[in-house]
């Protein structure tokens, strides 16, 4: 086991998959000569060359669609959106094309494309560059949506995504790139669609993913010092959504707080809360709480932006309201 960053784990997954399978290639803005604007593909251009590490023009609609077409015709593209905010431009390709062709043509076409995109707020980038729109993408059947919270999961899930026969959106949160974690040397995969218990506890269930899981873990640590044992479930993928560990935990704690960085309205928390009352109504001892981003476009000014985002104190407050 090595202690590596999430960024390194993603880099390793991409490099190992490219070495393993000639069909895997990368395309996106500044992925090649520049080495990736988040340095995820640094050194790839030298190792794999211009054919397999393809710098594109600034053309998100074409990045979304050309990669999907290449996937339909037998390749394994990993298309990178420099940030998930720019993926909005490709929404039609992802939702109306990549996610539909298998069904719409009666199973004749497969589209095993992976879209990678970094997202999230908190870096003073202003309203258009700070979205956490994961729930938007997870709304539509046909697309798989993954967003990991640890280096181990990032590497194992990205490998599963690349090997999947279905289109995948792989969302990375920029604040997690520097997080370190234990990652085994060499090849392993993490199955898509399996939620993970990151911490066990008997008093309350915290349900989260990606950066929200990080915040939930910090909150759980502090709660533990106060004698409150929170169980933390990391969803890891939003579609497919594995509710089993969530329900198992809820049947034990009877209380739940859902933590997500996106907006509360129509969000991941709304979905989880609805399923908890549908499938776990008899175990509900308190209202299900949601901790999410306040419903404003994110502002530039540092403190103002931070005040709109989730943090461990908001999670702790929510927990104490229902204990």
């Amino acid at each position, binding site marked *: 086991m090595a202690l590596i960053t999430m960024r390194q784990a993603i880099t390793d997954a991409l490099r190992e998959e490219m070495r393993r399978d000639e069909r895997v290639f990368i395309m996106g803005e500044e992925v090649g000569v520049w080495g990736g604007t988040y340095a995820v593909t640094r050194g790839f251009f030298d190792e794999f060359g211009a054919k397999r590490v393809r710098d594109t023009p600034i*053309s998100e609609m074409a990045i979304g669609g050309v990669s999907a*077409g290449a996937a339909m015709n037998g390749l394994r593209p990993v298309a990178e959106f420099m940030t998930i905010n720019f993926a909005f431009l490709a929404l039609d390709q992802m939702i109306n094309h990549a996610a539909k062709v298998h069904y*719409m043509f*009666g199973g004749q076409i497969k589209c095993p494309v992976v879209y990678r995109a970094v997202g999230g707020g908190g870096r003073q980038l202003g309203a258009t560059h700070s979205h956490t729109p994961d729930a938007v993408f997870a709304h539509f059947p046909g697309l798989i949506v993954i967003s990991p919270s640890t280096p181990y999961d990032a590497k194992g899930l990205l490998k599963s995504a690349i090997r999947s026969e279905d289109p995948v959106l792989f969302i990375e949160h920029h604040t997690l790139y520097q997080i370190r974690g234990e990652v085994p040397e060499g090849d392993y995969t993490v199955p898509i669609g399996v939620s993970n218990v990151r911490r066990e506890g008997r008093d309350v269930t915290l349900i989260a993913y990606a950066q929200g899981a990080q915040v939930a873990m910090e909150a759980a640590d502090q709660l533990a010092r106060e004698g409150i044992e929170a169980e933390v479930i990391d969803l890891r993928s939003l579609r497919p959504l594995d509710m089993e560990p969530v329900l198992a935990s809820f049947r034990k704690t009877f209380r739940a707080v859902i933590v997500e960085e996106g907006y509360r309205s129509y969000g991941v928390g709304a979905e989880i809360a609805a399923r908890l009352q549908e499938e776990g109504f008899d175990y509900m001892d308190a209202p299900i709480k949601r901790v999410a981003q306040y419903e404003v476009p994110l502002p530039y000014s540092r403190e103002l932006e931070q005040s709109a985002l989730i943090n461990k104190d908001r999670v702790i407050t929510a927990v104490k309201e229902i204990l």
Partner: protein
Amino acid sequence: MNKATLLEWYRQMVLVRRFEQKCAELYQLGKIGGFLHLYIGQEAVAIGSIGARREQDHVITAYRDHAHALAVGTDPKFLMAELLGKATGVSKGKGGSMHFADVKRHFWGGYGIVGGHVPLGTGIALAEQYKGTDAVVLCYMGDGSTNIGYFHESLNMAGVWDLPIIYIIENNQYGMGTSVERASAVPDISTKALPYGMDPRKVDGMNVVEVYEATNAAIKAIHDGKGPQFLNVITYRFEGHSMGDPLRYRTKSEVEKWREDDPIGVLEREIYAKKAASKDKLEKIDEEVEKVIEEAVDFAEKSPFPSPEALFEDVYVEGQPA
């Protein structure tokens, strides 16, 4: 052009014409639902260009896609079954008129979002280049598609990467009810190829032989290292944009004038001029096509609707997750 080929094109163009006329009839009867966009008037475009295609070459188009499926050789009965929403349809009754596909014949489908398939076709071409084959992609679209962002981003990327693709503009003069002159800042669509390093060619889309020759030349140009190709094929749809089009945007006399250049009539005259066949021979082909259409309708009518379980099939390749 040899006589047998001319007669085969005649058969295919009549097949498309009769197929579309039958579709209109079944639509009026309420047997075909959704949108229905007929190809009547444009037959020479799909038949001539796909006539030049080699087995390994790919075809992808927009929602006016019946002719392309027929041209690649898909049995009309599976197409008619698709239109009737039957389980035996090419897309198992899940696609409908706008979403025919026959991937084993390298026909990647009709697509309903204007321009949305243009990057897909470009990606299919990228895959062929990547694999090092000599296959090319015939990527069809209407004149209206040349105004959408997809067109510009895709052609630019194909130009940058030298992809083996022919963009074939089925320029039928109208994007729905808006004429090219009212929708495009440059009325000559050919000029839109220039910024992307392509040498456009304007083609008479009512003449199947010309369309064939232009496509053939474009395939050769790709193999000669000249990069992606652009054909501005001038044609006309005799019917409305889709069923129920009130046709307020053009005059009857305009349509009548174009009907003088009916592509089937143009080919007939060519056949007689070349003494490729007698009137009797062509009538015999007409009758054979009629029979094929009847059989297709019969097959479609007798086919079962999709089972209730089919609803959840093929959402994902690897099964339906929660």
